[in-house]
């Protein structure tokens, strides 16, 4: 029972960066823009957060910096893809390369250093509950924030007019345009805010999950998040479940690597999250095969222009 509780707790912690990235990308993709630069954004968020914590000794300032830098980088992608209407896949890849490179460059001098972090918060009564206490109520601020964000995004997307405008832009931008919605502004905001949220997910890695910087520390989480967005049918709550499930896979993999009953090569174990992502994608596609469509926003990936027929 103890092991189960601590595994669930680890799954939540491990899934939180995935959750942030998934939530951010859900917002962006719901507006019709594909941002494949999540891996780069997470790394940039991680290094910015770490440097901020190191220099200012304050995790909140670090967080704010990570948000800012994530927003700035995403606006580059937004400009290229929305205003210049360039290829969204290639632009996302460029963002990933840029993010990976800049974080590697800046992070060089911080390898091996430690900085302040977000510590676990003890809630007076709830933290001491037998099972749930450990799993759900003994996490740090950023974990709770991500949970709150999930609810907030759900409410925003499905219960507000602004959310409906966002979804309209992602499904049929010309219809939204004719209703007076500024498609470009909505897409810009969605991309920038989505990217900033993803960046927070990266900052979580260096500010709470660990309190250091390791090169390429996101280890493909950005890409897994893109798959998660599909699995969650672009809905925040399913995204949360998916994130924690995958977080669980990564947590179990770490435990197996640390030793114990199972002695499999550590390298083979490290394949696990990626193989499971792929297998899940296959199973998911197989089950959807007989139902029409995946639930993707209809205008996802296509640029919008008033003059042209595209």
């Amino acid at each position, binding site marked *: 029972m103890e092991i189960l509780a601590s595994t669930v707790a680890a799954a939540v912690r491990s899934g939180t960066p995935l959750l942030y990235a998934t939530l951010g990308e859900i917002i962006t993709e719901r507006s019709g823009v594909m941002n*494949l630069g999540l891996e*780069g954004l997470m790394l940039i968020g991680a290094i910015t957060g770490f440097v901020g914590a190191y220099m200012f000794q304050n995790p909140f300032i670090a967080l704010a910096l990570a948000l800012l830098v994530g927003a700035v980088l995403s606006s*580059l992608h937004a400009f*290229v893809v929305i205003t*210049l*209407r*360039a*290829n969204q*896949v*290639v*632009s996302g*890849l*460029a*963002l*990933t*390369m*840029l*993010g*990976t*490179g*800049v*974080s*590697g*460059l800046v992070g*060089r001098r911080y390898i091996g250093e430690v900085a302040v972090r977000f510590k676990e918060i003890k809630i007076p009564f709830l933290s001491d509950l037998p099972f749930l206490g450990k799993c759900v109520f003994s996490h740090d601020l950023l974990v709770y924030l991500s949970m709150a964000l999930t609810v907030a995004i759900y409410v925003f997307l499905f219960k507000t007019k602004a959310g409906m405008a966002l979804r309209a832009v992602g499904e049929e931008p010309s219809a939204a345009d004719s209703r007076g919605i500024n498609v470009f502004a909505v897409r810009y905001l969605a991309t920038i805010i989505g990217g900033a949220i993803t960046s927070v997910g990266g900052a979580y890695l260096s500010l709470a999950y660990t309190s250091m910087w390791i090169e390429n520390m996101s280890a*493909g989480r950005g*890409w*897994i998040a*893109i*798959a998660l967005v*599909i699995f969650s049918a672009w809905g925040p709550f399913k995204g949360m479940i998916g994130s924690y499930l995958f977080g669980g896979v990564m947590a179990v993999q770490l435990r197996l690597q640390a030793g114990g009953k199972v002695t499999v*090569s550590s*390298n*083979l174990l*490290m*394949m696990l999250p*990626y*193989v499971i*992502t*792929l297998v899940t*994608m*296959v199973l998911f*596609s*197989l089950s959807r*095969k007989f139902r029409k469509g995946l639930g993707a926003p209809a205008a996802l990936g296509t640029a919008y222009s008033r*003059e*042209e027929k595209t």
Partner: protein
Amino acid sequence: MKPRVEKLAYVPLRRRIAVPILAVVIALLIMGMFLWINLKSFSDVLTAYKEMFTWPFSPQMGFFDTLAKMVPLLLIALGLSVVFRMRVWNIGAEGQLYLGAMLTTWGALYWLNDSVNPWLAVPALLIIGSAGGALWALIPALLKAYLNLNEIVATLMLNYVAYHWVNYLIYGPWRDPKGYNFPVTALFPKTTWLPKIGGLDIHYGLVIALVIVVVIYLLCYRTRWGFQVKIIGDNPTAAEYAGIDIRTNIVLAFAISGALSGLAGSIQMLGIQHRLLHGFSPGYGYTAIIVAWLARLNPWAVVLVSFLFGGLLVGGEQLQIVLRLPVSMIYILQGIVLFTLLAFETVARYRIHFVKD
């Protein structure tokens, strides 16, 4: 008089060539700014530029190194130009490269024995390597063709799997017992080594690659299949109405791309490293994406661009040595090049033109 922005119906060749050149120039300037911030000395930045542009291209210094790096970039980018033309995004070239290297290693160390005739051994190993890459590409290919699975994520996941698989082998069962515990395999037998061209310091892989350039050119521009691929990329609905079998073509194109990436991996093993080792690829599979895009998917342009990027990688290594700059600079440069390319690509399609009020 006021300015009007007009979209051009046809973008002239001058502009189309100017775009990638301008993109690279601007990117280099931006990198110069990064260097300046990092190095804090303007003369150091000038030294950096000088090193980057002279070392990789002078025969006494890095020229052959540039050619050596050009070969894998050329091969992979050629393969990518085929799939990208179909708007199928094979981001898994790095993993296919790894599988090609892996199978070639298996062939050289565990399948052939030492006394096989090199004229048989080398081609056999190259074929196995290509097959390895093609098979690895077949997984996402079939998944995309028949399940409409997102090939970007699938190929990326397989990249990570391939990377860890190779690590498993070189740290584990294939580790060289005489290798002082380094993550390397045993050295391949001399009969499997790709020979150098005449007295020059570059292996025959270059010749193989150049032959493949012609093959790909003919395939894409002079066959019906190449035309079908282009239609599928430009307008899949029209392609379906025309009766073109999209699924088979996706699988075929992906397989070709995978085979070329695997071949590149094989050539790296047989021509350069002669053993499988950790980190044998500085991200060729990813850099090749930029090469292919910068070359606008044209095979002849790919030759030129892969040569230049080979020079860039060699120049980057020099900067690492001379100025102690980190390898991430090259990643940053690549990202910037791609962004500037995308920006200019679009801008080149418009012109500003003044009209009377």
